[in-house]
């Protein structure tokens, strides 16, 4: 098992890729199978959906700022919260991570030239763009866009209660994006299993890549069920299949089971990538290795495994689920999540923590996500769920979670933007974005916990002045304005970096994983040369030879680890660019 140390010098000659002489401009973008181009397309597209969904949220907050509000009709309001949720969950938080950031970063982090199936990757993107556009086209239909909530509970989602093309477009859109996600899952898992550079063992992968592997597996578990359920729903609407209809012997609650069997793993499909970003960002900006790396991997895998057996905690008040089982499984997720928290803290502990914008966002994530986690524990208790289910307490809970993920996404944007564009974002504007978002999130969503406890149900278009919900709702609405400015400043920041570029260099953050070993932005097939991979931090090992970790010193869990790392003593003799460097393609020679 000493393959790492004794690997001979490898010289890989790769021929010039033909498509370099291919089309240019728009045609190049449309026909590209480069993971970096597709990743950027994913990020830009999903960010557009984020902005649209954010504007819908602003309308929702404007409506709720006053009691007896008539700003939006009930019908329009129902469309707004349905499409806000659908765009955010299906078209932004997921795709921006597994389609955007992961697509761009994972091949770089493992030293691969591209994803395993580049054309499948392109298909994923075009399915996603097509699906997302179809969903938005609901607004152009004579009826309306989908207005049955982003969960589309049967039988509200049947053709009698919500007729029209808008809901149909919603279903078909999610079929397309469902397939897109499945293909991306296949691609991620294959890429991480098969395309790792020599020396990049599983336990040397950055945590972001680890989390994307687990996310990919979760996608393959959850999305096929959802996609099938959507087909069943479509059959109910158009072929009279009566799968979710009591009248034909069907079972409405079956939809809820199928939906949440997807829906809860989906929460972790959304969350795990961002846990990965935060882990890597904290380590880089603390100038330390990740604390408890193996525990982190174990925690990620446990979270994913547990997440497949907790779906019915969304259904505690149906009266038809086994409460203790789903309650216990939900509680148990707190244990690996807690491990992650302590590992994040341990990574900062006695470090040298520099608060550039990515690290600020990561710290904001920690603080906000903790609140979402603690309120999640409360909701995992069926009696407490009986009292708070479908109230704004739940809305506050999952927005604490999702807004923390959005902060982590911004940590990722700010962290990798220099790599992707070769330009730095402005620190001052970045910090303004962070503080507005952090304060805005808490001002918007903390009052929702209280208004939920006062008994305000979710998805109501209006409330009475006598209900006592007014003040708290006004505070929430004011907070949403801060969030609006936060995101606006981010857009300004991106524009400024475009007009007046500040060059980034290859490794502006003194980061440690492989993507920082190549140029910013990386060349066509990513690497001209790859440093030797002898630890979890190949680039760090090269830049800080005196602060490397010889793997042998690690606490060993078994003989396998010890023998696999048997040869790492050779580390001292090698360096980036020495004879041991793995050469790939160098056009300068």
């Amino acid at each position: 098992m000493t393959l790492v140390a004794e690997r001979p010098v490898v010289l890989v000659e790769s021929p010039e890729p033909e498509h370099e002489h291919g089309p240019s401009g728009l045609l190049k973008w449309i026909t590209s199978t480069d993971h970096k181009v597709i990743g950027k397309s994913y990020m830009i597209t999903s960010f557009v959906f984020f902005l649209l969904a954010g504007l819908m949220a602003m309308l929702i907050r404007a409506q709720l700022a006053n009691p007896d509000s008539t700003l939006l009709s009930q019908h329009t309001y129902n469309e707004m919260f349905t499409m806000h949720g659908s765009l955010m969950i299906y078209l932004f938080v997921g795709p921006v991570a597994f389609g955007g950031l992961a697509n761009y970063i994972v091949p770089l982090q493992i030293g691969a030239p591209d994803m395993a199936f580049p054309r499948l990757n392109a298909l994923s993107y075009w399915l996603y763009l097509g699906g997302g556009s179809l969903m938005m086209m609901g607004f152009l239909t004579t009826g309306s866009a989908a207005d049955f909530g982003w969960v589309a509970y049967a039988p509200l989602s049947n053709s009698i209660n919500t007729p029209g093309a808008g809901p149909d477009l919603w279903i078909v859109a999610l079929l397309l994006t469902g397939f897109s996600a499945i293909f991306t899952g296949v691609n991620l898992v294959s890429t991480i299993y098969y395309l790792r550079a020599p020396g990049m063992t599983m336990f040397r992968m950055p945590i972001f890549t680890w989390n994307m592997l687990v996310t990919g597996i979760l996608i393959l578990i959850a999305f096929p069920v959802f996609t099938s359920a959507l087909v069943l729903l479509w059959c109910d609407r158009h072929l009279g299949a009566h799968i979710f209809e009591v009248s034909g012997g069907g079972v409405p609650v079956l939809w809820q089971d199928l939906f949440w069997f997807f829906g809860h793993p989906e929460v972790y499909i959304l969350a795990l990538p961002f846990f990965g970003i935060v882990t890597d960002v904290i380590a880089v900006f603390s100038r330390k290795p990740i604390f408890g790396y193996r525990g982190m991997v174990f925690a990620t895998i446990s979270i994913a495994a547990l997440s497949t057996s907790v779906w019915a905690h969304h259904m505690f008040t149906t009266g038809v689920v086994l409460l203790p089982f789903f309650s216990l499984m939900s509680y148990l997720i707190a244990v690996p999540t807690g491990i992650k928290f302590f590992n994040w803290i341990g990574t900062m502990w006695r470090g040298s923590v520099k608060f550039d914008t990515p690290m600020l966002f990561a710290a904001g994530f920690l603080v906000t996500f903790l609140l979402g986690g603690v309120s999640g524990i409360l909701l995992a208790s069926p009696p407490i769920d009986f009292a708070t289910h479908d109230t704004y307490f739940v809305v506050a809970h999952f927005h604490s979670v999702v807004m923390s993920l959005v902060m982590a996404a911004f940590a990722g944007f700010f962290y990798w933007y220099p790599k992707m564009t070769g330009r730095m974002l402005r620190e001052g504007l970045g910090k303004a974005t962070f503080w507005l978002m952090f304060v805005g999130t808490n001002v918007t969503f903390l009052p929702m916990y209280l208004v939920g406890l006062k008994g305000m149900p979710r998805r109501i278009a209006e409330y009475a002045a006598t209900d006592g919900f007014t003040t708290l709702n006004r505070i929430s609405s004011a907070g949403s304005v801060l969030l609006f400015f936060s995101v606006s400043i981010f857009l300004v920041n991106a524009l400024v970096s475009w007009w007046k570029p500040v060059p980034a260099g290859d490794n502006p953050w003194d980061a440690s994983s492989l993507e920082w070993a190549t140029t910013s932005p990386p060349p066509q097939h990513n690497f001209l040369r790859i440093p030797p991979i002898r630890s979890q931090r190949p680039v760090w090992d090269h830049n800080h030879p005196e602060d490397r970790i010889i793997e042998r010193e690690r606490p060993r869990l078994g003989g396998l680890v010890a023998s696999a790392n048997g040869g790492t003593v050779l580390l001292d003799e090698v360096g980036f660019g020495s004879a041991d460097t793995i050469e790939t393609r160098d056009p300068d020679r």
Partner: protein
Amino acid sequence: MGIPGVGKPRWVARFLLLSMLALVLGGCTLPTFGAFRGATAQGQAEFKLWSWMTIAGLVVAAIVWGLILWAVIAYRRRDPDKMPRQFHSNLPVEIIYTTIPLIIVAVIFFYTVTTENKIDAVAARPAVTIRVTGFQWGWSFSYRNPAGRQIALVETAQRRPPVLAGNPTSPEYPQFVLPLGETTRIVLQSADVVHGFYIPAFNFSRYALPGVTNIFDFTPVRTGIFPGHCSQYCGLYHAEMLFSVRVVKPSAFQTWLNAESASGVAA
């Protein structure tokens, strides 16, 4: 390898626990954290669990927030040239912070199950039985005698023109009545889509699920009028699917029921 600095947050935790203990021993009532204390015996059981779990949750959160804050402040970069020691694991510490959450989970799970058994328990012989039906967009409350015959009916006026959501206790919305201190059986059904039968002051909601009959008990411990909402989104006028419940002394309840029966709805 020891991790210096851990001692301080532990001290904070001890302080928090002690102050909590003082709070309880001092005979104070449990803090509500903004929630209802519960106007039924079942709701009170929920409240007790809520209050204790929120205390526990906030203590844990305070410790972790404290650790984050400490790490963020104490270890921020002051000297750009200083390289921190490259430690990356501490097995005993990792085992401790895996084990302690497991113990916490075991404890809260125990109290969760005992509480939910109390709330979900149904009496063998309830004093009153009400068949509640949710429909788009209203409720009907049908009082039944032991033989299952309807003896009184309260329901949302059919097809009233859509109005702005009023106060749930105002007269255009149905108000059903419960006797204080006696156990009422609710038999909950839906006539069309999924609705949520939610009474905030009772700390309770349950779906009216098509094709399923949900049965549960209320034992009111406080008189008064309490608002109720549909909590599960059910279509266009979801926001207006309001109702209220009035809890009165048993004698007043009997008077009310007799009057309702005599008004001929039941015949």
